């Protein structure tokens, strides 16, 4: 391994870098495994929708799992690939704390979207809620048509 005797004066802190690439490749395999898992769940959702009686709660549970897996991927990419995990605590907090705004952001807006759908289906709340129209395809493959 090359030893550089002159460290540039621009570097105020030379991190002790683990000399192996094992951690990097291990993270790659982990990210790939999580992606494969997400795809498996995606295909499971696809098959549920193809079936006769799609269980809405099961689909929702699967979608929730996929979201959690994505957040796990985000954690590994940011912490290990972007080296945020190696920074000092205050720097980590500078990034993480503002991003917590997303928790409100996502909750509030999806709640709104869902509310609009209910208003649409009940004529602004003046009609009783009709069941959401099921527009799932019957078990006819789309590629059997031209």
């Amino acid at each position: 391994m090359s030893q550089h005797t002159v460290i540039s004066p621009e570097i105020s802190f030379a991190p002790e870098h683990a000399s192996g690439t094992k951690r990097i490749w291990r993270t790659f395999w982990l990210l790939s495994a999580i992606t494969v898992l997400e795809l498996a769940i995606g295909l499971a959702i696809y098959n549920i929708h193809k079936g006769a009686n799609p269980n809405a709660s099961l689909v929702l549970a699967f979608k929730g799992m996929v979201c959690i897996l994505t957040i796990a991927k985000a954690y590994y990419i940011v912490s290990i690939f972007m080296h945020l995990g190696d920074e000092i605590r205050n720097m980590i907090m500078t990034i993480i704390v503002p991003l917590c705004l997303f928790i409100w952001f996502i909750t509030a807006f999806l709640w709104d979207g869902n509310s609009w759908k209910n208003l649409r289906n009940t004529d602004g709340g003046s009609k009783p809620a009709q069941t959401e129209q099921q527009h799932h395809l019957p078990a006819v493959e789309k590629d059997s048509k031209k």
Partner: protein
Amino acid sequence: MMWYFLMSDAFTFGAFLISYGTIRFSVNHWADPNHVFNAFPFAGHANLPLAFVSLMTFILIFSSVTMVLAVHEGHKMNRKGVEKYMVLTILGGLAFLGCQAWEWTHLITGDHAVLVNGQIEHWGTTVSKNPWGPEVLFNGKEVATPGPIAFGGYFFGITGFHGFHVFSGVIINLVMLIKTRLGHFDQRGHYEMIEKAGLYWHFVDLVWVFVFLCFYLI
């Protein structure tokens, strides 16, 4: 500094994706990604839901790995190593852009029967036409009706904005490669700039992970 820019960009993408989620969940029927995105290059009309976009995800993850390895080589002041991994990262980025271009072309020039005003027309998916609406019975066959117009705008807008970031990332990486080749970083005594370019590249990968989630999985 790069971290602060990435924070602002994260909120921009976040705003786009969350507004997409709001509109998507506010309508009764939305295009099923397993039916819209089931094509694969050179596979004809085979039904392969999620296959192509999975390939794109792996390409981007892999290019992120080569980027980390480039940064790693930079810490060891190993110019040849940095060059090698930067080339691989750039190739990964170009491959991703090629794939996205194919996906867009396939969607825009696609041919789907849509029932419009009692007549069957053939539509591709564009910003103004969405052939993935609810199906109805017409002459004994199931035919699609036009779907929510927002689909095209959101899909092409967000993936386009992301693709633009990939493109600018490839340019930045190219500049990094050239500077490495010219010995600028050896002269400077450190490869920190590669690390900053790496942050941008990982951010681009991260955004794709969320775009993949929002458009293809949920």
